[in-house]
């Protein structure tokens, strides 16, 4: 592979994409994020607007209904950060099909690609989802308690999943399960009789995002629907990509909190001057600024490794734990700088604080 120039700068294409999403976010999302959160729903036309940008299906080959453009993890982190700077719930919902389609595209068999990708490469957004998280203490995406057992020509999946985004409307989901001590992914249809989708969950954050618990009881999946066929898939790679994606989303949420608190601190006057004129506030603002940048750079670093065709295990892990930690700190500062006003839901910093908590906890909800 030809070596690329080392660069922290965006190229024309990256800048254009960033600006396009930023415009959309500013015009559609920013003013409505509060409403979406209160009403606990994302209007489908918002998701459709993001979908129409075509970013998700752009790297999918034309033969499967995509545009056959270059696949770029870095571009995907740029997109996720911008969307999440508008609203984290929307960022996850609007890009959700990527989490189902990209692993199939990358690791699926030809039959799986032909069968599952084209129906979702449509002009209209059609949800398909991933089931990774499990509702238990000490949950770990690398040691799953949802089990897959080989039985004749199929696998039987048993276990419980939670935080499955848009499970109710999704035709298919990619389910992570332990097979002989190792994580694997299975393509499961919503209509499978072994699948039970529970009541919509109520969570700390992401009120606008529909998430569901899903139970698998003797859920029989044909061998042909094990991702990658009988040889299986590289589940670790799947996790790497979702970790990078969550870091990008964390960067977006944190940036939103930083920018809001920064602007507020210039306007808010106490003791006769803007509170930003006091070092105790200004230093928090400074820290937010460089931690947001640090988070973004770690995300780009991990995505750069992927683009160079390298393994990003260490980089994606470090990016995610940094983002998880830093997002908590930054979104906390956001609330703190606004003081009592930060505690009131009229200001978005309280939502960023709740949503941001998810970065460290959630796994697999987005991909690059």
């Amino acid at each position: 592979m030809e070596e690329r120039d080392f660069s922290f700068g965006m190229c024309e294409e990256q800048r254009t994409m960033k600006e396009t999403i930023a415009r959309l976010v500013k015009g559609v999302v920013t003013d409505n994020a509060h409403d979406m959160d209160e009403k606990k729903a994302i209007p489908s036309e918002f998701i459709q607007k993001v979908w129409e940008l075509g970013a998700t299906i752009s790297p999918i080959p034309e033969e499967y209904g995509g545009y056959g453009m270059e696949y770029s993890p870095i571009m995907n982190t740029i997109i996720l950060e911008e969307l999440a700077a508008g609203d984290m719930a929307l960022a996850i919902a609007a890009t959700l099909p990527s989490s189902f389609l990209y692993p199939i595209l990358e690791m699926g068999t030809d039959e799986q690609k032909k069968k599952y990708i084209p129906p979702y490469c449509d002009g209209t957004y059609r949800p398909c989802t991933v089931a990774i998280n499990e509702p238990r203490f000490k949950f770990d995406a690398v040691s799953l308690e949802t089990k897959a057992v080989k039985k004749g020509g199929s696998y039987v999946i048993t276990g419980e999943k939670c935080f499955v985004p848009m499970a109710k409307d999704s035709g298919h989901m990619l389910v992570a399960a332990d097979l002989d001590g190792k994580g694997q992914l299975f393509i499961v249809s919503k209509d499978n009789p072994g699948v039970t989708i529970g009541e919509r969950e109520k969570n700390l954050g992401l009120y606008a995002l529909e998430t569901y618990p899903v139970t698998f009881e003797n859920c029989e999946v044909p061998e042909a629907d094990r991702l990658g066929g009988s040889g299986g898939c590289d589940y670790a790679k799947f996790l790497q990509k979702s970790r990078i994606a969550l870091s990008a989303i964390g960067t977006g949420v944190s940036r939103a909190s930083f920018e809001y608190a920064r602007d507020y601190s210039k306007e808010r006057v106490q003791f006769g001057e803007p509170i930003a004129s006091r070092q105790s506030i200004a230093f928090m603002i400074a820290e937010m600024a460089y931690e947001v940048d640090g988070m973004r750079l770690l995300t780009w670093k991990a995505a750069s490794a992927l683009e160079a065709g390298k393994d990003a295990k260490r980089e994606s892990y470090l990016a995610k734990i940094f983002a998880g930690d830093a997002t908590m700190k930054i979104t906390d500062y956001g609330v703190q700088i606004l003081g009592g006003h930060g505690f009131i839901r009229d200001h978005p910093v309280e939502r960023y604080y709740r949503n941001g908590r998810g970065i460290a906890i959630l796994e697999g909800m987005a991909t690059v």
Partner: protein
Amino acid sequence: MINIEPTRKMIEVRNSINNLAKGVLRPIARKYDVNEHEYPKELEMFRSIKIMGGKKKKKEGDDAPKSDKPAPKKLGTNLSTVISIEEMCWGDAGLLLSLPNAGLGNAAIAAVATDEQMERFGNKWAAMAITEPGSGSDSGSITATARLEGDEWVLNGEKIFVTCADRCDVVVVWATVDKKAGKSGIKSFVVEKDRPGFKLEKLEHKLGIRASDTGTFVLSDCRIPRSNLLGSEEVKTATEGFKGVMKTFDNTRPLVASMALGITRASLDFTREKMEESGITLDYEKNLNNVSSLEKDFYLMEANLEAMRLLTWRAAWMADNGEFNNLEASMSKAKAGRWGTLITQKCCDLLGPLGYTQDHLAEKWMRDSKIMDIFEGTGQIQHLIVARNVLDFSSKQLK
């Protein structure tokens, strides 16, 4: 196009300097920590090697393509320097600061010297004297004076915390030619060590970087030729001149950040080695809730080290690309200075008795790293600069 995967060239530089640091600096790190102020003669071999600064004047025609072949991927001076410094400080930071002919004064001379000055001072070891007992972060408030008498400048004042004070040949001294002019009256002068009236008063005993000789100079009616002034004699009404001087900090701050990086990495590498010896493997896989507190601390420190490095590399890369990097330079030093301190402290904690004894270097790294959050602008000054930048506040709006 964004790509922050290190290039082969960057890895080459890193590896070759690391070999040097491992072979030459690390083995004598403790020796010169214990024997404070003793000249590390082993460093003589570096007299001709440029690790820090030392901008070479470009010869005409250098930019012309030499053949039809595509140009090899270039590695900018600033980026290559921060990579090198990280490695050198992984070896030993105090020794890096003691490299012959590589003082901060050398960087200042290289930046503004005339050809004639370059001829006279280019091959000298030049220290930098800015700080005074009453003037630290507020370097605009210095009181050392220079007055012109005929063809000579007469300098008076006291300068403290001068790095390489004992070993240098010349000192770049900051003094004001006109107190009423405020910051714009501040000029820098090259003072040779043997000038009458120029006295090295004492050498300090420090918390860390003990291999580096830090001293105090007293100038009493010290006379130097008029041509020893660096830059223009003219006192401008605006503070442009002073701003120019401060701008050089945009280039040096990432260098200090990379020093913090090197020490911090040394500390983490040693901690990792001890963890692995005791059977702990870091697999970068498990949820942080499912690893020991020791491992969790380690992972988070490593992630922060990575953030320190990327912020530093970004500032250096911007400088190489001619981008204004005042904000990014201060971000890198704010992050690296503070986290270098926190991480080297924490490593001692994780190492337990191995982190407290002088049998190992961890205790030394904890002492060495502290200065990185202090010199070339304290962490607090960096936070002020970052905050003013992102708030778009003047120094009056945010004091």
